């Protein structure tokens, strides 16, 4: 009798393992769920990042010199001179601040450690070791200039002579 009761209340080996696996699956599911929530939480709901390429309009429409119209949205300065139309990054090559264009002094000046750049992006004062980087620009079928920020051209690597880095105008 006593033996029978004991047998009823306890579970056998097979049942134990099925309970164990159910428990384990439930545990991993809940942990995984929480982790995925945390992971999701790390990414913002809305990303204000501008697209990596954009249509800058017709190159002929720009005046020679530095143009700031895309700086606020895409972080790009257009510089037109000597028959070349280029798109310059607005990230200081020293430590990545955003320089300001001083139109009266005709130079870019970084507010962080005072690096200065000529309108064409060449560094001439302060600690910045390299000129501002340039982005790929090309003309689409309708004659509009497209700026592609995924491809950069660095002066010290001699990439500014690459035909992708400018549009002849």
């Amino acid at each position, binding site marked *: 009798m006593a033996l029978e009761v004991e047998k009823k209340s306890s579970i056998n080996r097979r049942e134990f393992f099925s309970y164990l696996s159910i428990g384990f699956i439930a545990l991993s599911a809940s942990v995984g769920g929480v982790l995925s929530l945390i992971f999701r939480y790390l990414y913002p709901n809305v990303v204000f990042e501008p697209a990596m390429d954009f249509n800058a309009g017709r190159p002929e429409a720009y005046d020679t010199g530095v143009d700031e119209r895309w*700086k*606020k*949205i*895409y*972080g790009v300065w257009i510089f037109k001179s000597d028959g070349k139309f280029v798109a310059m990054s*607005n990230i200081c090559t*020293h*430590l990545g*601040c*955003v*320089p*300001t264009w*001083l139109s*009266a*002094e005709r130079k870019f*000046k*970084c*507010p*962080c*450690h*005072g690096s*200065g750049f000529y309108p064409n992006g060449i560094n*001439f*004062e*302060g*600690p910045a*070791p*390299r000129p501002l980087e340039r982005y790929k620009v090309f003309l689409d079928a309708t004659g509009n200039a497209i700026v592609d920020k995924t491809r950069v051209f660095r002066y*010290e*690597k001699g990439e500014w002579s690459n035909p992708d880095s400018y549009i002849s105008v």
Partner: protein
Amino acid sequence: MKAIINYLSDPVFSFTGIIFFFFLGIKHIEVVASKKFATIALILILIIFGWMSLDPVFLSIVIWPDNVPIIFLLALVIWSTWFAIHKGVINDQRMAAGEPPVEGTPENREKVWAWPNLVYTELFAIIAGTVFLIAWSILLKSPLEEPANPTWAPNPAKAPWYFLGLQEMLVYFDPWIAGVTLPVLIVVGLIAIPYIDTNPKGNGYYSFKDRKFAITSFLFGWLLLWIFLIIIGTFLRGPNWTFYGPFEFWDAHKVVAANNINLSEIFWIKFLNMPLPKNIFAREFLGLILVAIYYTFVPVFITRKFGQKFLITMGKARYYFLIFLVLTMMSLPLKMYLRWFINLKYIVFMPEFELNI
């Protein structure tokens, strides 16, 4: 008068001046540590500070909510440095007269209980600190700015005050050097102090004479290369990180010619009158050699001249590590002067490898 002060506060003069006064003070440490000197200095500082605050530009910098705590902290730094030196010099004098240091006198060797003696003091400090923080947060509103925007930066863009010394360093160095290598070496060096400095003197009592070299080199790095740079970065750097005197209006259009060139350009173009060689190492060989000399021959030279005693007492490994740290520390003022006097940008300039020294 104000124009003269503006002119003299330019780092070229003010940094040189403060180095001079620092070593003058170390030389006449007994004078500096005396109460009379401290009283006179305090009165003078208060008078000068009061007079300077009459100027609207200076006042607006000083009472800007970001800067107020820095003024407090500067006062604390000066006070605690002076106080430690004051106690040290008293002990030096006592020991010179054959007496034990103040901390060694019988009445000071008496032991007391942590409770209540220590805990009461701590409790009081906690309450006073909390009251101070609450009063401060009510009186001075925290200066919040607009949301961050990746395509725009405030001008000037300033780091938190405790990093302004670092930001000032970055003016003279590549980010890999001033932003990574030097801070790491500072931390490593501070951690290494107990392993380098095995001098048993000065344990448990204040003293200056017993640890002259250690105290001087620490204060040099701390007061001149950190605190002073924070002062410059906080109060004297305006738009575009241009230098502005304490009474100078922060005019964003102030133009300072800051053109600078690399050592390789000075050597090849200016001096030899030829184009830069294509090969990077040929181009930068002078700078590389100079840096190598700085870390090899200079230590040997220093050892010959002054270091024999240290070399023997400290052992080779400790000694050369110390020399390395000291030389690295001295590279900062060195680079600052090179920038000011010969407009030197980088001694070694290899952007191809992101290596610029």
